[in-house]
């Protein structure tokens, strides 16, 4: 015999009407708490603005014009960021270089995410010998330190790819090389996480249910399990962009990354340490831009990680 609820009781009605916050609302609420993550979004937008809108004020050809008579000039009205060792205007180089650096970051991240998720998902879902093989391979890749590997691959493949023509601009083939190389050496961490998640998620009942009604493996992997493991993928992707930008900078700085005349923030720093006393503007501007970009992305990634974490549904840190 159930104890009846009085039907029109306001508290009862209110209880039913009051919706719990939806998942996305909760995520946004948590994200908003991170002031720095919000600052990161704003600053990233500004930087993207700089790199994209800047092209309205100067052309790429201009950024590559060399004029040794005005080399190493400090910031002035005509060259707000100064000129570099062969007289190129640094401001326009940072604008175009920014586009390349950001693009490398995004595309390399895409490569990394695709490879990492595929390998992790297949290894985790099928298990058995496929899992063993893939994981041995992943571990082997993991054990080769990334920067030396990047350097070697960068040097190796540098002249193997011809210059590209995209959107009416010419890119040195080394851009493609760098994207591929960074992407192909950064996927291991994500693969491990995805695999771990797949291993546990595939035991869940919704997978058994899908299998029972005859769903094939492909749709199960991509339609059922994968959406449930989006959180670490999103966080990893975000931080992956930052890592790719830093890695590109490291490699280009050492001279085996993107080759001139295509500018990137990283290769603008190449050799700048020889002029540290005489021409600090050579490295301050591109350096600061890299730092700001990476910082913003990292803040956003950190905010996302906290916001998406299903374990912390209460407000304690």
């Amino acid at each position: 015999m159930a104890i009846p609820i009085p039907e029109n009781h306001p508290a009862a009605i209110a209880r039913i009407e009051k919706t719990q916050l939806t998942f996305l609302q909760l995520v946004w609420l948590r994200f908003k708490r991170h002031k720095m993550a919000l600052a990161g979004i704003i600053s990233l937008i500004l930087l993207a603005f700089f790199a994209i809108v800047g092209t309205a004020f100067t052309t790429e050809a201009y950024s590559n014009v060399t004029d040794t008579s005005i080399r190493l000039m400090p910031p002035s009205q005509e060259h707000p960021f100064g000129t570099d060792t062969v007289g190129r205007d640094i401001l326009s180089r940072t604008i175009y270089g920014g586009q390349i650096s950001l693009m490398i970051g995004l595309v390399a991240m895409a490569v990394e995410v695709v490879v990492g998720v595929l390998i992790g998902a297949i290894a985790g879902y099928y298990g058995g010998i496929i899992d063993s093989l893939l994981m041995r391979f992943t571990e082997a890749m993991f054990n080769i330190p990334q920067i030396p590997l990047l350097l070697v691959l960068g040097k190796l493949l540098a002249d193997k790819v011809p210059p590209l023509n995209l959107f009416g601009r010419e890119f040195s083939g080394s851009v493609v090389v760098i994207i591929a190389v960074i992407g192909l050496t950064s996927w291991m961490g994500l693969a491990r996480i995805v695999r771990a998640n797949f291993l546990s998620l595939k035991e869940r009942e919704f997978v058994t249910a899908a299998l029972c009604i005859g769903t094939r493996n492909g749709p199960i992997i991509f339609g059922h399990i994968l959406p449930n493991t989006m959180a670490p993928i999103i966080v990893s992707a975000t931080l992956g962009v930052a890592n790719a930008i830093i890695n590109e900078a490291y490699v280009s700085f050492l001279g085996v990354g993107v080759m001139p005349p295509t500018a990137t923030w990283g290769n603008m720093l190449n050799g700048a340490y020889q002029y540290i006393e005489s021409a600090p503007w050579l490295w301050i501007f591109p350096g600061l831009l890299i730092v700001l970009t990476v910082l913003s992305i990292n803040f956003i990634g950190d905010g996302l990680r906290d916001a998406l974490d299903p374990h912390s549904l209460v407000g304690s840190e």
Partner: protein
Amino acid sequence: MDPLLEVRNLKVQFTTLEGMVHAVNGVSFQLEKGKTLGIVGESGCGKSVTMLSVMRLIKEPPGRITEGEVLFQEQDLLKLAKSSMHEIRGAKIAMIFQDPMTSLNPVLTIGHQISEALVVHWGIGKEEAFKKTLELLEMVGIPQTKERYKDYPHQFSGGMRQRVMIAMGLSCKPEILIADEPTTALDVTIQAQIVELTKKLQSQFGMAVIWITHDLGVAAEIADKMIVMYAGFVVEEADVYEIYENPRHPYTLALLKSLPRVDRKKHDRLANIQGSPPDCIQMPPGCPFRPRCGFGVERCEHENPGLMPVAKGHKMACWVDVTTGRPQ
């Protein structure tokens, strides 16, 4: 005779993203020396938080004890300096918890964890602590004490681990033992053993016990007095026999009615309490149980009944006399 422990009007809040959670809303009760108090209520009603607050184990952000007094041995525990609480915890008042697997440190031997309290509170040497620990292990029914002293928590079964927890709690012969759902994670046969063990040790040591549970059956076995909690309030308080024979609060009634019973007819349906657990962020004025109560009257909407005496040693918080269905 003065009660051993008296809690007066305890209020505890937690700050969360969704708002301020009012976990404990003016809880008061007394514990007599050597007696057992059972605290019963559904998950989330504030029973654990109440006892953790007594021990001052609530993390200050996000939690906060906003009001109340906890009187023990002529001191208000809530006003004591933190350093003084160290001397009370473990030595005068001990607490054991629900899940013995996570409540024991996995990288320390159980022997060490038991003797630790002895060394810290009694200042005795390692040798003596070792001997006393072996005695304790034997007392709680763990065989081969010498070998098992050096074992780690993962090498024990659930029931054995809970015995270890009990040994740890009792090591310094506290005056009060607080047991927070110690048998919930164990299966029924082990449950019975643990309850027996606790009763035996209680009479041996003469200590008072506070046993928190949501299982009415267990509470009936071990408690002398019971309080029923709902939404952070105490809604009924009485002797254990009185509560089971003469429940006077609608919630208690409902709880008892929902117990599966051997003597019921075969096709009787299991009763349940309609509605869902209360939202402790936006508390309605008036009685917290009103939305799910079958006895409500006008008054219940606006005024929250506090605990009112209704018979000797029996208090409850309701405007309605459930025996007649009419307001008091």
